[in-house]
């Protein structure tokens, strides 16, 4: 049981670690696929978001 729980814990920690790593080295799509002239300053809010 301990081995099983250790495997689950390791999988969860590894997944979180990978998510942090990928988040750090990848660009958001609004940066990667747009040019500076059309890039919005606050994506999700200043054009199509509330208010």
């Amino acid at each position, binding site marked *: 049981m301990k*081995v*099983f729980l*250790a*495997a*689950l814990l*390791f*999988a969860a920690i*590894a*997944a*979180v670690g*990978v*998510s942090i790593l*990928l988040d750090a080295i990848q660009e958001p799509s609004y940066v*990667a*696929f*747009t*040019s500076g002239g*059309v890039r919005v300053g606050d994506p999700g809010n200043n054009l199509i978001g509330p208010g």
Partner: protein
Amino acid sequence: MPSSLSTLKASIPRALCAAMALLFVLAYPAAAQLSFKPTAESVHEDQLLNALKEGDKITGRISIPDAMAASLIQPAGRDWRDFHRSKLPIIGGVAIIGMFAVLAVFLMVRGRIRVHDGFSGAKILRFASFERFTHWLTASCFVVLALSGLNISFGRILILPLFGPEAFATMSAYAKLAHDYLAFPFMLGLVIMFLIWIKDNIPGKIDLQWLKQGGGILFKGQHPPAKRFNAGQKGIFWIVIIGGALMSVSGWFLLFPYLPANVTALQFWTVIHAVIAMLFIAVMMAHIYIGSIGMEGAFDAMGTGEVDLNWAREHHPLWVEEEQAKGHAPSGSTPRAMPAE
């Protein structure tokens, strides 16, 4: 009249060209129909789409960094969407429900595979802690990957009507995140499994004998020879390694789109990923069945790591002899400690 003669001479080639052009248009009416102008006749979308043949696409000119955004219409995408919406659920449904039905019939006909001589009470170490850790790391990730992957193919049909759109969308978003990130510990588990178990999973002549006797699981009382892993387990090992490698490579291309090449290559790898996944899940259902309710005493191997000596003798007699020769297992005849049933 020299000027009128020269005019006549000049007009003859023009007339010939016009006649040939007219002949070409009359002879090839389909070619004439295809010569429409997308900008002037954009309202006729059906005509435009139907005119595109396999491999054709309509492209534009763009100035943004994503050069592939210049592809406006690519009919191959409709075939790909049709595959995912209609054909893939059928493949997956047949594979998974079919395997479930086969296992249910097998359990009803054959029953649970018992230890023929009953449990001895003596134990032998089958898998060390690190081996079990690797197995459960890979297995737990696989379960989440399988369920979150099946949600992509069947969620709209099966779960959306039950949960409603808001709950289904939230659940699917988290499932997709789990799918993306748990893929990495899954791949790590695959690599470790390959390294620690490859030496015991090389096919040999003894495996043919095991296969000829149906692994000893089709008929009661048969115990074909096997070393640490029998031919069935070796088959599972190579399915996991090769299938897992295909899933990993294709999954990597889905995580990082356009890494292989263009959108056509991306579509190809999504199909590979989806089809292998369905078959993989079906095979793993059989593995889970035989490792739990299908065979008495089998779960202990990955549960505590130790199996009963009589169980080991019946299913892996040559391995038991090797372990006894090394002094890793109790030797001699082992009395029957408890009845099998």
